[in-house]
């Protein structure tokens, strides 16, 4: 039977092709000094002016570094260190005149960049060789942010502070409407080149803004060659040209991103000091080695987290996070790494994130918003009903702190001793029920109309875990007798609702852009209301005044006192229900050199060291294919078919008559 033979030989052929095991990488690659990681989402774009997503930053920041960067080992007290800068920027007071306002106290910052900087080699440069970098390239990056075509997400950080920047933005918008290109020529007062030194530039601000240093550590301020912009045009999104330790070697959408060492990279070394205890942990082992440590980084796109976790277990990913799905397997009940994982050559690292999650009330909503005592009490009651601990247990495997205020640990101003009276959960809900009654809703029933109070919870939690989340919050709030109606929508629809101010309760998180309390406290600053970062639209003039004072200050007791005052106000008004301060648990294979997560730095890829030999050995050991079930299956199939052959034989020898053969003989 020809078709049967063809089938089996075809199957055998497929096995032959697939026979070289389950490694998703080319043979031999895992033996080399390559760091393998995965991303669930493909970066949408890699352009320093507009990339904003975390998975984009992680790649972009090692290609396009900035003046400053974060010291990778110092996480107790987050510190900046120089990257492209030659020395610390000089900050000086700079009074200047504004029409109608008179003299204003501004600031002038002077930046001195390194002299040995060169862009990576790229076809956009003449001869394909990267040219030297000057201060011009830094200012060019600023002007790109002001170009509406780039839709830079951080343009507001600068437009209200850098002198003349907002005018430029407006001018560019007009130009775009007239179908003309943005203005890259007209000088603006806030961005100045030094007439004599090509490696110096100055930024003039209309107000004191000590946080500018942090902005100068973000990739938005990374120097940019205009050649690349001209050369790649609209495709610049896919062709970042920088001067960092790595260059983008391959980007196959949805498949793989590969980073290779940049031969033109500035000389930099693994730091030789860290937090106390880092040396004991071996974190300083590579001190003084030239960066980057790994020759290559391969980022594979794995949309399914299940698949990614299994690939990690097979040794094909070097690092992975502890999530709800793998928690049981990874952790013991005491919160330590499970013995199986230890045996599997895995280590666990815990760290804090500058990430706080909260529920926000819409302060302009007629039901939950407003500043009357009744409305306050309603919010306080709801706040009391929500048990952070349960959320942490369920969704963060018990890792994370029940947040008491908006400022997370690691930021100056965090107070471990502070307990928010409205975030202290009491299972009996006595106080909450009392407050609800005082708010006019005894047992959740509107005293006036007799209707049950319904609160709408808008969210984008359409996937499985989200549904559990909704279930939990419903249960907790409905314990008060209030009816919580969840309106789960696709992310964008949800965003639209928020923009349209058509919401009552949402949950949100804030990850720090830079490690300063201002970056958290501004979430409640009135003028920052939507489309600014102030989601709830909280607008308390007293708070606003305090915030404006606090913003310009350097850290110190005076600033701290202001912060406490502000905290007290927010506590009573209760526009937000703080949920948790997120902690992270990461798993690393031991073939990966010592490393330390950092709450905010995006440049960690260059500090990853890999022992490829060890990895390759273990991979082989763990991934021996199991073939016998397939063979068994085949054998069962063949054995099962054997009687069928008999059936056919039988069929050939069948008679259509039931006649008794003896009868035949008689008549014959």
């Amino acid at each position, binding site marked *: 039977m020809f078709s049967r033979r063809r089938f089996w030989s075809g199957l055998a052929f497929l096995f032959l092709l697939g026979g070289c095991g389950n490694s998703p990488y080319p043979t031999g690659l895992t033996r080399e000094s390559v760091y393998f990681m995965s991303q669930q989402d493909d970066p949408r774009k890699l352009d320093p002016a507009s990339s904003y997503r975390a998975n984009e930053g992680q790649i972009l920041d090692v290609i396009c570094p900035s003046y400053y960067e974060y010291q990778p080992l110092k996480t107790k007290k987050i510190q900046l260190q120089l990257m492209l800068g030659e020395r610390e920027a000089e900050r000086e007071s700079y009074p200047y005149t504004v029409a109608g306002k008179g003299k204003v106290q501004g600031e002038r910052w002077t930046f001195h960049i390194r002299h040995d900087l060169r862009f990576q080699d790229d076809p956009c440069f003449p001869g394909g060789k990267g040219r030297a970098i000057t201060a011009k390239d830094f200012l060019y990056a600023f002007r790109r942010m002001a170009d509406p075509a780039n839709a830079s997400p951080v343009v507001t950080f600068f437009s209200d502070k850098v002198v003349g920047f907002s005018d430029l933005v407006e001018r560019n918008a007009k130009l775009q409407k007239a179908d003309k290109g943005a203005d890259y020529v007209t000088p603006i007062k806030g961005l100045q080149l030094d007439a004599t030194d090509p490696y110096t530039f100055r930024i003039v601000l209309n107000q004191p803004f000590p946080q500018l240093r942090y902005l100068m550590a973000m990739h938005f301020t990374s120097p940019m060659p205009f050649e690349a912009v001209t050369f790649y045009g609209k495709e610049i999104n896919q062709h970042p040209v920088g001067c960092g330790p790595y260059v983008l070697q391959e980007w196959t959408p949805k498949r793989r991103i590969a980073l290779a060492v940049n031969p033109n990279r500035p000389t930099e070394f693994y730091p030789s000091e860290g937090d106390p205890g880092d040396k004991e942990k071996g974190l300083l082992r590579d001190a003084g080695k030239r960066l980057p440590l790994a020759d290559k980084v391969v980022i594979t796109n794995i949309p399914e987290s299940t698949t990614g976790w299994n690939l990690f277990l097979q040794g094909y990913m070097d690092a992975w996070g502890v999530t709800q799905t793998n928690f049981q397997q990874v952790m013991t009940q005491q919160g330590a790494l499970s013995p199986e994982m230890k045996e599997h050559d895995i280590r666990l690292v815990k760290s804090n994130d500058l990430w706080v999650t909260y529920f926000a009330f819409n302060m302009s909503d007629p039901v939950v918003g407003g500043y009357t005592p009744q409305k306050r009490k309603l919010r306080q009651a709801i706040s009391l009903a929500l048990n952070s601990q349960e959320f942490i247990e369920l969704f963060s495997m018990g890792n994370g702190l029940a947040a008491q205020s908006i400022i997370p640990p690691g930021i100056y101003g965090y107070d471990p001793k502070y307990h928010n009276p409205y975030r202290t959960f009491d299972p009996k809900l006595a106080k909450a029920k009392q407050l609800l009654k005082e708010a006019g809703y005894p047992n959740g029933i509107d005293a006036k109309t007799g209707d049950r109070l319904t609160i709408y919870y808008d969210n984008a939690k359409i996937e499985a875990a989200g549904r559990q989340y909704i279930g939990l919050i419903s249960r907790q709030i409905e314990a008060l007798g209030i009816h919580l109606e969840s309106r789960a929508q696709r992310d964008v629809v949800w965003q639209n609702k928020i923009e349209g101010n058509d919401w009552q309760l949402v949950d949100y998180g804030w990850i720090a852009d830079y490690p300063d309390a201002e970056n958290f406290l501004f979430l409640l600053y009135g003028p920052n209301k939507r489309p600014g970062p102030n989601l709830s639209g909280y607008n308390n003039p007293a708070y606003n005044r305090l915030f404006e004072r606090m913003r310009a200050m350097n850290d110190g007791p005076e600033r701290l006192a202001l912060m406490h005052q502000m905290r007290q106000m927010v506590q009573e008004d209760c526009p937000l229900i703080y949920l948790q301060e997120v902690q992270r648990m990461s798993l690393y294979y031991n073939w990966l050199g010592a490393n330390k997560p950092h709450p905010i730095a995006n440049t960690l890829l260059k500090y990853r060291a890999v022992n490829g030999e060890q990895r390759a050995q273990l991979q082989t050991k763990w991934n021996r294919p199991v073939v016998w079930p397939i063979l068994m299956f085949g054998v069962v199939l063949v054995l099962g078919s054997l009687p069928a052959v008999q059936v056919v034989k039988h069929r050939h020898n069948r008679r259509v008559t*039931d006649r008794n053969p003896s009868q*035949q003989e008689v008549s*014959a």
Partner: protein
Amino acid sequence: MALLKVENLRTTIRTRNGLSRPVDGVSFEVEAGQTLAIVGESGCGKSMTALSLLQLVPEPAGRIQSGHVWFEGRDLLGLTWEEMRPLRGRDMAMIFQEPMTSLNPTLTVGQQIIESMTVHRTARGKEAHRRALESLERVGVRATAMKQYPHELSGGMRQRVMIAMALVNRPKFLIADEPTTALDVTVQAQILSLISELQKETGMAVLLITHDLGVVSEVADKVAVMYAGQIVESASARELFAKPLHPYTQALLASLPSRSRRGRDLATLEGRVPEATAWPAACRFEQRCLHRFAACALHAPKEAPPEASHPARCHLYDPQFNTTKVAAQPLVTRPSRIGTNTDGDSGSAAQTGQQGSRALVEVRGLTKDFPVRGSILTRAQYQRAVDDVNFSIPRGRTLALVGESGSGKSTVGLMILDLLDPTGGEILLDGRPVSARRGPDRFALRRQMQIVFQDPYASLNARMTVREMLHEALGVHSIGTKGEDRENRAGALLEDVGLSRSALDRYPHQFSGGQRQRIAIARALSVNPKFIVLDEPTSALDVSVQSQILNLLRRLQQEHDLTYLFITHNLGVVDYFADEVAVMQRGKIVEYGEANTLFDAPQQDYTRNLLSAVPTVVQ
């Protein structure tokens, strides 16, 4: 010794309704060079007998229970499937009724003929090809057909190919299962003569299965009449037609329409063949037999001894039961209800004389084109199906429209009824044009003309009871008042066509073919039409049922003063029934005239061919 000797063959088939016994103790012999015809109504087990010989009964439901099939001295029933296979197609070949479906549509004619040889290793390669060509040539198919596919050939050609394929291995025995039923009369004649020629050449024996007594009388040496799974009578052809013994054979012969029976009722066989799952225990024909007497309902007639030259399985010839020793006389047709019009012409001719001047239906220059192919992008091309047809039918008379299939007969009928728009020409009913009418006028027309179709299975809506059908027809035309009045009318209609009122509550599938045709006629009559188009009303029916319907139609014509357009290809029926005949060929009327004159002295070659091709029973 006979080439093939069948003894007491019994085949059963398991069905949903129980065990069916289509072949129930059949014995016969065929000598080399001889043609044995097995005749009988449908449902008598003829085809299953043929299939049983080759052991091709439908499996696994069908089994051969007992008996012997001796072929050249070997008992075939002792052989296994694989032992039997070399005999099939090599020593014993078979051809089937439907040449359309019996050939593989995806293999060329050549491939299929050559396959017959290669599977038996009788020839291969060039030799096989040569022999295939030879056999095609022999059956009169051009050599180019070798590379053609069955659908590219006409029906007659396909049947020739089937014969070529069957005969290429020079079998000793050929089974022909209704080989000409699906073919036109003229083609039928060619095929039949071809088979007998080949038989003479090769000396093979032929077993011919057919229901057409005409065919039998033309080609068979011996005839076996089969009824209800048994052979009831067998004799040489001449003897059988000259002196039929069994009442069944007699009835079959008597029910054949012919000119000699014109104006009289045909003999009918009431009832139908019993179900094969429940053959009556005593005489199986007893229920329908006009000669039955007491013993018939009690005892099964014995099979005649094999030596008998003209055995008939009937108590009449069994001395034990028929004590009067009077053999049955050939049946005399029962006297007609409408008087003794022994001379078929006189009655109606007289009528014609009175009314001949005024035609009820007149057709002038009727033309119909059908688009052959056409889409948005190509110009449609047309084929002329009906070409300038003219005729008129006087009130109360019958015009027969005859011709081969595809000659445009039915199209004319549909156009007259305004069911199809004519391309040109005009149709007058009572002097007023039909197709020009609009609205209520057109609707009123529906009451005046009706149609009865060929296939009694397709012409009744399977999802409606007879009552629903009749009430709908009455209701549409507001005949009678709702309720009891219509109920009475419906009942009366049924009684008029010879069915009982109890039929009202039943669905079409609960009736036999003949009964269905009666219902269709009742439906047509429900609106009291003046004119009925009969589109091959009997060609799907057995001879015995055909005679019932013809009798009915004749009676109704007289009682209701109906005018008929009788479309048919069966010239025997025309000869019996029609007053005038129009012969159609390729859309045109080639000959038109009074029936008797035309049949006696056909003017056109085509008509002559048609007439000569009709096999007639020589009694």
